[in-house]
């Protein structure tokens, strides 16, 4: 009994859970920065830079602006971090130990919405005009990308026989090959990669945190540990979001742990590479362009994907 509990705590906190996701996320974020640097013929930061940045934020002073809604301002980063920690623990559990994958896709979807929601609430509570602009942009962007991601989830659910359980989706792919190989699966991964890009605020869709025009937008009033919690949740998402997409669409048949780690590392590297290529060949889009891209280009594509999935292609 005690063995079981301590093992459960270990799996949730350390190995495929929070600490592992955090480490991999930090590496992924660094890789994205390093690749961008290499694209521009620069040297780029050392591999531990993400962790150093975080550690530094936790030794800095916290400032709370006068006139801010204090409770909401302080609590937003903490809730955002705890939701992402829960999300990454569940997803990593599900991928590495299939029998522990208890959650369904709907739970994971709303756990994913919580961080963006509290970024918006934190920005609104900070009483800064530029933060309001950033929050308004993030809200509009959320309307765009969440819709597209729900479409790609529907494709995955149709393809794995109508089940919304993560374990069923994994089992279905382990038996019948990954969804990625079919036409509708390919459409779903295309939508998902743009979703990752927008969710993490990477360049074509970073208008909510645009450094040059609205001075870090939603993050403008956050400093020290509070900003650290936001960045820590982003670090976690850097790994667990691609892992979630891989779990939904690209599970390779095979049960041994080393093979799984190898394949997830390979697929993760490919996702990061695609993300940084998109980042480096695009300027920041206007909010109107981003919305019309998601709604009038990707959504019809997704609906075609749903029709293909219903046909079994």
């Amino acid at each position, binding site marked *: 009994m005690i063995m079981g509990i301590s093992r459960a705590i270990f799996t949730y906190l350390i190995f495929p859970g929070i600490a592992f996701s955090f480490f991999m996320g930090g590496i992924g974020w660094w890789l994205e920065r390093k690749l961008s640097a290499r694209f521009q013929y620069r040297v780029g930061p050392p591999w531990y830079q993400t962790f150093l940045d975080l550690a530094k934020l936790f030794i800095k002073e916290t400032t709370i602006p006068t006139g801010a809604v204090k409770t909401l301002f302080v609590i937003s980063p903490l809730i955002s971090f705890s939701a992402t920690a829960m999300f990454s623990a569940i997803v990593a559990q599900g991928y590495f130990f299939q029998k522990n994958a208890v959650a369904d896709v709907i739970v994971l979807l709303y756990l994913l919405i919580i961080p963006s929601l509290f970024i918006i609430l934190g920005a609104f509570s900070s009483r800064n005009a530029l933060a309001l602009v950033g929050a308004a942009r993030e809200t509009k962007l959320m309307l765009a990308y969440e819709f597209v991601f729900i479409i790609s989830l529907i494709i995955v659910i149709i393809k794995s026989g109508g089940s919304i359980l993560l374990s069923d989706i994994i089992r279905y792919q382990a038996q019948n090959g990954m969804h990625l190989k079919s036409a509708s699966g390919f459409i779903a991964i295309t939508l998902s990669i743009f979703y990752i890009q927008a969710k993490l605020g990477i360049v074509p869709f970073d208008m909510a945190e645009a450094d040059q025009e609205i001075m*870090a937008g939603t993050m403008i009033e956050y400093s020290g540990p509070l900003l650290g919690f936001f960045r820590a949740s982003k670090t976690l998402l850097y790994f667990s979001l691609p892992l979630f997409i891989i779990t939904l669409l690209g599970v390779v048949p095979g049960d041994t742990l080393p093979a799984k780690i190898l394949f997830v590392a390979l697929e993760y590297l490919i996702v990061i590479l695609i993300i940084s290529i998109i980042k480096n060949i695009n300027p920041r889009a206007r909010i109107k362009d981003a919305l019309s891209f998601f709604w009038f280009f990707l959504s019809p594509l997704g609906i075609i994907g749903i029709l293909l999935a219903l046909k079994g292609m």
Partner: protein
Amino acid sequence: MGLKEKILTKSLWVFHLSVGSCNNCDIEILDCLTPRFDIERLGMQLIGSVRHADVILVTGALNKKSTPILKNIYAQAPKPCFVVAIGTCPCSRHMFKDSYNTISALDEVMPVDLYIPGCPPKPEAIIAGLAKLIKKVTRK
């Protein structure tokens, strides 16, 4: 040398503040981020908001209008935060010394950690200056 200073100096986030410069020093600061110099390899990043800043780079000659804004911005920065005077203007008021509008040099308004003179200073000089700042902080 403490662990705190070591961590702090390896990820200095730089906030760039012009208090009335001729834009020349600002261009030289941006040059530090280009492929040839690339200060991101030292962990430095140009960031948008003072709330995230570890270093405030001040360029230009202070005047009556910008001094209160500068004081306000310095008060908003979370401590520990270093102030670097870039160019001869904030160091010593340069040729605007006798101007009716330029009332003081930067170090009469707030504590300055590092002076980088030059009109404008080369990117090499700015990087050498930042290396000196790191040395100064970690030795303290």
